[in-house]
C-alpha cells in the first residue's frame, strides 16, 4: 500500500516536473479513514498527497468532462481498470484525445462498497465489494502509460455470490411485475441528476432533460417525470456504459441503476457482439449497423 502510494507520487511528481502534464487527478485520503476523495495535483510539492486503496471508489474519468478541468490541457489521471474503460469510450467518442492524457493505471483487486466502508467495513471480500468487481476482467487496466501494481491481496471469487442477480429475477417477471418493481424505484427519484453527473460518459453540455423547446422529458419529480428521466438516461447509456457503477453509488435514494445498465450491456453484447470501452479504435455500437442485424422484432 505504502509502496503503491509512493509509486503514484513519484509518477505524478515526474510528470509535473517534466511539464508533460499540468494536472494529475488522483486519490487522496478522505473525510474519514474509510474514505478516499479525488485530489487535483498541480504542483510537485502536493504529489505526496496521492494515495490509493480499497476505498478509492470514485471514477476519476468523470472530471475530464468538466470545462474547468479541460483547461489544464495535458492531464495525468489515476485510473482503476473499470475507470480506464471510461477513458477508452471517451477517446472513441472524441471527448478526450489520447495525446492529451497520461494514463496512470493502478491494479485493483476490488473496491469496498462505500456504504459498508462507512459502517466500518475494512476487508475486501466477495461480500463487501461492488458487483462490478465480481465480474471484473480488467483488474489491470487495458490501456495505460504507467502501471502501478497493487499491494492489495487478490480478490477471491467463489461464485457463491451472483453479481447483478436481480437482473435474471426481473427478466423472469411479467410486465406488470416489472412495472411495479420500477414504479417503486423511480418513485424515490428526486431528480438530483447525481447519476448523470457522476457518469463519465454523460458528457453532454446540455442534457436532453434541460432542453425545453421541446421539453421531451417531463420536468416533474413524480412517477412520470422520474420514469422518463430514468428511461432516457439508461437509453443514452445503452451500449456505452462501461459499468463503473458511479451512477448507482451516487444515487442518494438507492435506485438500482446498475441493474438497468448491466442489463443493457448484456443485451447489446448479445445482439451486436459489442462491449463498451475495450478498444479505443472500435466504432461505437450505435454509430454503425450491419445489414444482418437482429430483425425478428420487425414485421
Amino acid at each position, binding site marked *: 500500500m505504502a509502496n503503491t502510494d509512493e509509486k503514484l507520487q513519484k509518477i505524478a511528481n515526474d510528470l509535473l516536473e517534466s511539464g508533460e502534464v499540468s494536472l494529475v487527478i488522483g486519490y487522496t485520503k478522505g473525510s474519514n479513514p474509510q474514505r478516499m476523495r479525488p485530489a487535483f495535483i498541480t504542483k510537485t510539492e502536493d504529489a505526496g498527497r496521492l494515495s490509493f486503496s480499497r476505498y478509492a471508489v470514485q471514477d476519476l474519468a468523470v472530471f475530464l468532462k468538466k470545462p474547468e478541468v479541460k483547461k489544464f490541457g495535458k492531464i495525468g489521471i489515476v485510473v482503476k481498470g473499470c475507470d480506464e474503460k471510461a477513458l477508452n469510450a471517451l477517446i472513441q*467518442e*472524441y*471527448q478526450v484525445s489520447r495525446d492529451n492524457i497520461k494514463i496512470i493505471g493502478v491494479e485493483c483487486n476490488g473496491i469496498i462498497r462505500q456504504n459498508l466502508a462507512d459502517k466500518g467495513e475494512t476487508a475486501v471480500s466477495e461480500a463487501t465489494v461492488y458487483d462490478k468487481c465480481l465480474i471484473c476482467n480488467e483488474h489491470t487496466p487495458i490501456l495505460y502509460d504507467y502501471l502501478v501494481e497493487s499491494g492489495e491481496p487478490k480478490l477471491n471469487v467463489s461464485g457463491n455470490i451472483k453479481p447483478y442477480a436481480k437482473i435474471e429475477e426481473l427478466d423472469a417477471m411479467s410486465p406488470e411485475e416489472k412495472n411495479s418493481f420500477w414504479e417503486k424505484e423511480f418513485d424515490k427519484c428526486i431528480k438530483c441528476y447525481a447519476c448523470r453527473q457522476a457518469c463519465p460518459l454523460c458528457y*453532454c453540455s*446540455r*442534457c436532453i432533460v434541460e432542453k425545453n423547446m*421541446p421539453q421531451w422529458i417531463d420536468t416533474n419529480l413524480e412517477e412520470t417525470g422520474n420514469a422518463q428521466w430514468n428511461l432516457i438516461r439508461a437509453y443514452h447509456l445503452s451500449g456505452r456504459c462501461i459499468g463503473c457503477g458511479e451512477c448507482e453509488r451516487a444515487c442518494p435514494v438507492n435506485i438500482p441503476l446498475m441493474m438497468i445498465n448491466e442489463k443493457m450491456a448484456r443485451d447489446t453484447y448479445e445482439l451486436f457482439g459489442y462491449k463498451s470501452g475495450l478498444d479505443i479504435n472500435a466504432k461505437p455500437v450505435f454509430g454503425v449497423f450491419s445489414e444482418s442485424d437482429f430483425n425478428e422484432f420487425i414485421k
Partner: protein
Amino acid sequence: MARIGVFVCWCGSNIAGTVDVAKVTEEAKKVPGVVTAVDYKYMCSDPGQNSLRNMIKEQKLTGVVLAACSPHMHENTFRKAAVKEGLNPYFVEIANIREQVSWVHEDKERATQKAVDLMKMMVEKVKRDRPIEDVRVPLNKKALVIGGGISGIQAALDIANGGVEVLLVEKEPSIGGRMIQLDETFPTLDCSSCIMTPKMVEVNQHPNIKLYTYSEVEDVSGYIGNFKVKIKKKARSVVEKDCTGCGDCWNACPMHKNVKSEFNMNLSERTAIYVPFPQAVPLVPVLDRSVCLHFKKGGKCVKCYEACGPKCIDFDIKDEIIEETVGAIVASTGYDLMDNSLYGEYGYGKYKDVVSGLQFERLLSASGPTEGVIKRPSDGTTPQTIVFIQCVGSRDPEKGVPYCSKVCCMYTAKHAKLFAHKVHGSQSYVFYIDIRATSKGYEEFVRGTMEQDGAVYLRGRVSRIYEDEGKLIVKGADTLSGNQVEIAADMVVLATGVIPKKGSDKVAQMLGISYDKYGFFTESHPKLRPAESSTAGIYLAGMAQGPRDIPESVVSGSAAASKILGLFSKNEYEVEGTIASVNEATCVACFYCQRVCGFSAISRKEIKDRSGKVIKVVASVNPGLCTGCGACVNACFSKSIDVKGFMDDQIYAEIKSLAI
C-alpha cells in the same frame, strides 16, 4: 402571432362522402391561431387555388393547412400557389384526409374525428414552421468520367458536345473498354471496332475532353458542384506528346513471347512495351515495368529507346498526381467476367478448347490473335462442332450469382451464327435455361440462328465435360425431350456471367455512393432516378450498374450526360432547404451524427477566438450533401442537431396535439 388558414377539400364526394367537411371546418375555427377556415369542392382546381391565394392575401395568413389528398399528390401545387402570394412554400402543410381517411374508413363520424385530429396536428406543425430557403451551391462546370468504355465515352462526348469540359479517366492504356474487344454486335452484326473506333478518335480529338489513360482516380472529396479529385497518371515511360505510334519500340522489344495479352484474353502474347490493340486511343504505347527487362535487369536493356526515332521513351517518368475540381462525376467502371474455374465440371483452364465468351469474341475478331479465323487454342485447327453453354454463373445462386447477366443469350446466338457463317458445314449446340431476347430485333435474331444457321438449342444443363481422343465430350440433359445427350465437340464456349469490375467497390467507397451486395452501383431510385447515384452530383452509366447491352449502355451514358448538362445549365445547384443544422452552443462534438450520416454531410468545425485559438469543436453540416433524412437528429443525445421541415418541436407538437 400565427395567422393560420385551414382549407378543407371535398374532393367532390371522395372526401365529403365520408368526412363531414363542414364539421372539420368548424373544428378548425376553434383551434387557437386559426383565423379562417373554409371548405371547397376541389381545392386543387384553379378556383380552389385562387381562393387559397385570395385568403392568404386578404387574411395576411402566415401559414396554411390543407385538409385534402395526400401531400404526395398536391403539396407542390399548393406550395406554388402560396409562393405566388409571397408565402414561404414550407408554410404549407397537408392533412391527408383522403388517402388516409375518407378512402380507407367507412364510419362517417369516426372518419370525421380522425380528419379533425389530422387537421389539428398539421395546424400545430404549421405554427412551428420556419421559412426555409433552398440551398444554393455554386457549380464548377467541369465533369469527370471514370471509365472509358462505351458508356463513359458516350457520356464524355455528350457532355463535351454540350460545351462542358470533361476529364475522362481510363485505367487501361487505351479507351474502348469491353466493346472494342467484341467482334460483331448483335442483332445487326455491325463490326464493333468499325462503330467504336470513330467515337474513340472523336474523344481524343475533342477540344472539351481531357483524356487520361493509364490513369486512376485516387481520391475524391467534396460535394456536388465542388468535388476535389486526384488523378494518378501512372508512369507510362513514354512521352505522349512526342510519340507517333509508329511501333518501332514494340517491334524492338525482346520480350515478345512471354507476356499474355490482356486485350486478347490471354489468347496471344504481347511485348513489354505495347499498345493493347492496333486501333488503341491514344496510339501511344505503355511500358509495362513489371515485365520490362530494363527494370528487371538493372537498366541493361534499352532496345526500345534505341529504336525510337523521336526519342520519346523515358525510363525515369514517375507517377504523377493531377488535382482537379469538378462539379459532377460519372461512374462508368464497367464489368468483368466471373471466374469460370468455379465450374470445374466444365473444364475451363484444364482443357484449352473450353473458352469464355469474350475469348471467343477475340477468336472471331479480324484483329484478334487468329485474324478472324476460328481456330482451336489447343492445336490451331478449325472446329467443326462447338457447344455453347449459357448461364455459366448467372442465375445460379448456389455457385454463381442469382441475377441474369442479360447479354449472354444474345451473344451466344451471335456466336453460333458467326460460327455457321465462318465455318461452312459446322454444327453448334446451345445449352440454355431460357432464351431472353426482348429488345428490338433480338427475338428474330435468335430465331435466325436456330432456323437459318442450324444451331441446335437444347434446354438443359451440362453436367460434365471431359476430353476423349481430341474431342470434348459434353454430357448434359435435354429437358424438353427428357433425354440425356452426349456431344463430341471440338470446342466449348462458356457464356460466363457478368460481375462488376474488380475494384469498383473501392471506387464506390471513394465516391461515397452505395452499391449492392454484388458490387453494382445502386441508383438513387431504381425506376425514377436510374442515372443518379445516392450521392448528389455523381451519376452512373454502363455495366457498373448492372448487366446491360450496348444500346442500353449508350443510353445510360447519354442519360448521365444529360443530367450533368441539366445540372450545369444553371450557375448554382439548388438543394431543398430541408436539411440539418447544428446548434453550436450545445453541440459537444461526439460525432455520432457523422457516424450515422449516409451522405458524408457532417464534418468537424473548429470555432476559434479572436486570437485564432480553437475554443470549441462542433459538428457542421454541408448543405450540398445533406439530404435531410434526420438520422443525425436521432443519433444526437442532446438534440443539438435538427432537420428543417421536421424539427423536434414540430414533431413534439404533433404528438401533443393527439393527446387524449
